[in-house]
C-alpha cells in the first residue's frame, strides 16, 4: 500500500467507498480536530456547524451523550466525540464546536474540539485503516486519507450515531 501520488488513479476503488461516491468521484470532507487527531466527515451529511452553543445535560443518559441542543427550534442530541472515541476528556474551559449531522430521520450534533475546512478528495484514495490503529478508531472509521502532511481518519457517521444500536432495537 505504498503507492505514490502518481499511481493513485490506477488503484482499484477502496472497499469503503459507496457506489454513489464513485460516480461523483470528488467528494467534500469537513475536517475536524478531536484530541489532536485530524478527522473528516462527508460534508453532505453535515447540516450545520455551531461554535457557541448551550448543551443541556440529560440525566441518566450514557456518558457519551453530552445533552440536548436547541438548533433553531429543533432539539438535537449532542454526542461528545471525545468520550465516544474513548479519548481524554477536553481540558476545562474549552468550548466544543457542534457539528450537526443528519442520520436517518434525525439529526445529531457531534461535539468536537475544532472544525477546520472542507477538503475535496477522491473517495478512491480512501485506504482501509491500518490494523495498528486503536480498536475504537477502527470501529468508527470508514478508512483513512493520506494528506500531504498528515493522516485524516474518515469517521463513519452511522456507527458514531449508534446505528448499530438502532438496528438492534
Amino acid at each position, binding site marked *: 500500500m505504498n503507492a505514490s501520488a502518481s499511481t493513485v488513479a490506477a488503484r482499484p476503488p477502496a472497499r469503503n467507498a459507496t457506489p454513489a461516491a464513485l460516480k461523483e468521484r470528488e467528494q467534500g470532507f469537513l475536517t475536524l480536530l478531536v484530541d489532536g487527531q485530524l478527522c473528516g466527515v462527508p460534508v453532505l451529511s453535515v447540516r450545520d456547524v455551531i461554535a457557541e452553543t448551550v448543551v443541556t445535560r*440529560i440525566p*441518566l*443518559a*450514557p456518558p457519551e451523550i453530552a445533552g*440536548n441542543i436547541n438548533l433553531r427550534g429543533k*432539539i438535537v*442530541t449532542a*454526542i461528545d466525540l471525545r468520550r465516544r472515541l474513548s479519548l481524554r476528556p477536553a481540558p476545562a474551559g474549552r468550548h466544543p464546536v457542534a457539528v450537526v449531522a443528519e442520520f436517518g430521520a434525525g439529526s445529531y450534533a457531534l461535539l468536537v474540539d475544532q472544525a477546520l475546512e472542507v477538503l475535496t478528495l477522491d473517495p478512491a484514495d480512501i485506504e482501509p485503516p491500518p490494523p495498528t490503529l486503536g480498536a475504537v478508531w477502527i470501529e468508527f472509521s470508514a478508512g483513512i486519507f493520506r494528506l500531504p502532511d498528515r493522516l485524516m481518519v474518515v469517521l463513519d457517521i452511522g456507527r458514531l450515531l449508534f446505528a448499530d*444500536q438502532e438496528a438492534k*432495537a
Partner: protein
Amino acid sequence: MDDLLADFVTETLESLSELDLALVRLEKAPDDQPTISLIFRLIHTIKGTCGFLGLPRLEKVAHAGETVLDKLRTKALRVDSHCIGLVLTAADRMRMIIDTLSRGLDEPAGDDGELIHALNELAEGRVVATVVPVATAAAPAPAAPEPARSAAPATAAIVPPEAVAKLVVPDQVDAHGEQQSRGQTTIRVGVEVLENLMGLVSELVLTRNQLLQILRTTGRPDQSAGDAAEGSLATPMQRLSQLTTDLQEGVMKTRMQPIGNAWNTVPRLVRDLAHDLGKKIELVTIGADTELDRQVLELIKDPLTHMIRNSADHGLETPVERRRAGKPETGQITLAARHEGGHVVIEIRDDGRGLDPVKLGARAMTQGLVTEERLRRMSEDEIRRFIFHAGFSTAAAITSVSGRGVGMDVVRSNIEQINGTVDIESKVGQGSQFLIKIPLTLAIVSALVIGSAGERFAIPQISVVEIVLPGAQPDMVLDTIDGAPVLRLRNRLLPLVSLTRTLRLHTEADPSGDAACLAEKVVVVLTVGSQRLGLIVEHVFDTEEIVVKPVAPVIRNIPLFCGNTILGDGAVIMILDPLGIARASGLGMATEIRSRSADTGIAASDGRSDLLLVRAGPGAQKALPLALIARLEMVPRARIEATGSRLVTQYRGALMPLVALDPAVGLSGEHQPVLVLSDGDQHIGLMVDDILDVVRDRLDVEISSDEPGLFGTAIIDGHATDVVDAGHFLTRASQNWFRQVAAAGPVRRRVLVVEDSDFFRHLLVPSLSAAGYDVTTANDAENALALRDSGELFDAIISDIEMPGMDGNSFARKVREGGPWSKLPMVALSGKDDAKAGREAGFTDYIRKFERETLLASLEQCLAQHVAA
C-alpha cells in the same frame, strides 16, 4: 344525501376527469393498451357502483360505454375519432347525471336511448349517423350560468371590458360551483399532511410565546428603551398573536372528527349486550357531532367500549329487579359529549343500581386495599374511586361480559395516557355516571416547570395535584419511616422521592448530591395511577404550554422521561414521566404493582424486562419477572402457621399457602419476606431470604437447568442469576390448594397455546389451568397445524406472533383458510404493538405478552362471543 352517495359523487367526478384525459390521450395514441385498460376500469367501476346504489339511468349509460371499451380492449374494434367522441359524450352524460345527484336530487329523468343505441351499434362495428352532438362539458347541463350574466352589468358600466370578463368568470364559477357543490367542496388530503401542518403550527405557537416573553422581559429593566420597543412592536405582535391563534384553531379543525365516529359501533354493542345479559337496554346518545382530534378519538374508542360494557353488565339491573325497584323495565344508558374549555367531556350514564359505597368499601377491605380505620375516614366519593384500583372488580360474580379482574383501572390508565381524567358519581338505586375529561388535542400540553441542582424539568400538569411547602402548616410535616422520607399531609402519609436522587443530579462540586438534596424543600404531589407520591424539588418555576417531542432513539430507553421540549426562553428540557419516577423509586413495590400499565412491558421492544432479584437458599441470586408478582410482603413470624405439613398465613382475609422458593429458605428473623403471586382472589406466597432489587435487563437463559422450579442461569445485572420458573410454584400450589376450586367450575374448555419460547409457555400454562382451562401446547405453528389435521378440537387458540418458521400472522391466516378450526376465537400474544396486522390476519384479539389478566378476560370474552354467534 347520505355519506355513501356523497363519496360516490366525489369519486366519480374524479374518475370522469381522469376519463376525459385518458380518452384524449387514447385519441392521439390509439394502440395504447394500458390507457384502454384504464378507461375500461374507470367506466366499469362507475357501472358497478351505480348498480349497488340504485342509479339505473347512470348504470345503463355506463354499461353501454363499457361494452364499447370491452371491444376496444379485446381489439375487436379500432380506436377512431368517432369512437372517442361517442365515449366522451357518454362521459358527459354521466357527468350531467352526477351533477344533478350532487345537488341532493334524484337521478334526473331523461332518455339516453339514442346515445345507448349509438354506443351499441358502435360496439357491433356499425356507425350510426350520430344525432348526439359531441358536446362540450357544459352543454348538456340544464342550468346554464344565466344568473351570473345578469349580475355582472351593474359593475360592467364602470370597469374596462377585460375586467368584465374577469368579473364574469368567478361568477360563472360560482354558478357552476353551486351545481357541483357536493363534488367539489371537499378534497381528500393525506393524514400525514395534516399531521405535519399541526406540527408546524405547534412550533409557531411556541415561537409566538417565546416572542411574547422576550417582549415582556425586555420591557421591565429599562423603562424608556423597553417602552420604545414595546410601543413599536406591540401592535404587530398582537396581530401576530391573534393570527397564530386563529391558524392553530383552523389547523386543529382539519384534524377534528365528530366523536360519533367512535360511537358508531355502540348501538350494535348495546343490542348484543342486552341480548346476552337478558336485559332491556335503551341507548341515548347526545352530542355525537362534538368534534375532537382524530388521534385522541382513536385512543378513546377502547375505553369507551369497555365502560359501556361495564354499565350494561354491572350498572343496569335485570327487568325483574327493575320492576321490583319500581323502575321501568328498560334501562337506559346515556352517552353524551360536549366541549368544555379546551377539553371534551364525555359522560356515560346509566339509571341502574348505582355503586354502593358500603359494599365497595367492604370489598376494598377484603382485598387489602384499605384498612378499616382509614375506610371510616373516607368520603363516599373516595370509596367509589376504588373501582379504578387495579384488580378491583365490582361484579359479585364474574360474568363473561365484563370478564374477571380487568376493570376500570385499565380504562383509567388508558385515559391517563392521553392526559385525560376519569371520575365517577353515583347514587344508590338511581344509577352511576362516569365523567371522562380529555384534551382536544395531544399536540400541546400544559406542564409545570420545576428544578433541582440548577437543572429544570417539565411535568405534565395533569399529574400534578398540589404543591406543598412542608412545615408551613402544622398538618404538613416531613418525617421518615425506616429511613424513607414521607410527608404527613392532612393525616395521610405520602411517600417522598427526591428529584436529585432519582435523576442523580450530582455535580462535581457536590458529588454525593447531598447539598442539592438539602436544598430541596418543595413537594410536588403527583398522582400516578391510583396512588400519590411527593416529588421533592428545589424550585417550582411556572406552568407553560409545551409541545411534546419524542426523545432521540439513543436515550429512549431511560424510562423516567416521556419526551423533551423547548421552553419559551429557548432552553431544551426533559419532560418527566410520573409513572417512570414512581417505578424508579420503587414506590410501585411498596403498595400495588401496576402490572398492566402499557410500559410495564415485560417484553418491551428493547427485549428487556423488569426483574425482581431475591436471595433464597445458598447459591446464586434468583430472579423472576416483576410482572408476575402482585405484592411484596413482610409477613411477621407470628402470623405464619403450620397446617399439617404446609405453611400458611392469613392474607386479605383468607388463608394463603406459603411455599419456600428454595428448600433451604430458613424461617429466621421476625419477618419473612414473601412474594405474593396471585390469580384472581387466589394467592400463594413464595418465601425468600431477602428481596434484593428490581433491575431492568435482558432475560437470556444461558445455561438451562434440570432442577424443578428453575429455568436456568442468566447473567443479570452483571451477576450469574438463577431464573425462577414461577409457573412451577403456581402449579404446585394449585395442585395442593386450588384443586377444589377448579373442579367445581363449569366444563373445562380446551385451549391451544402456540408459543415457541419454553419460558413463556411455562408461564402461560399454569395461569390458564388455574383459570379452569384445559391447556394443550404446541411449540410452533407447524405442530399446531398437525394437531388440527389429526382431528384435535379446541375452544380457542392463543398464539405468539414472533416465532421461527411460520409466524403467528401466517398461522392465523392458515387457520382461517378453512378446516375445523376456521371459526375458532384466536388471541395473539406479542411483545410488539401491531394489533392491526394481527387482526387483518384473522386474530380475534391482540394482547401484549404478560398481560395475564387481560389475556384471561379476552379469552372469556372471545369464548362468550363465539358461543353467542
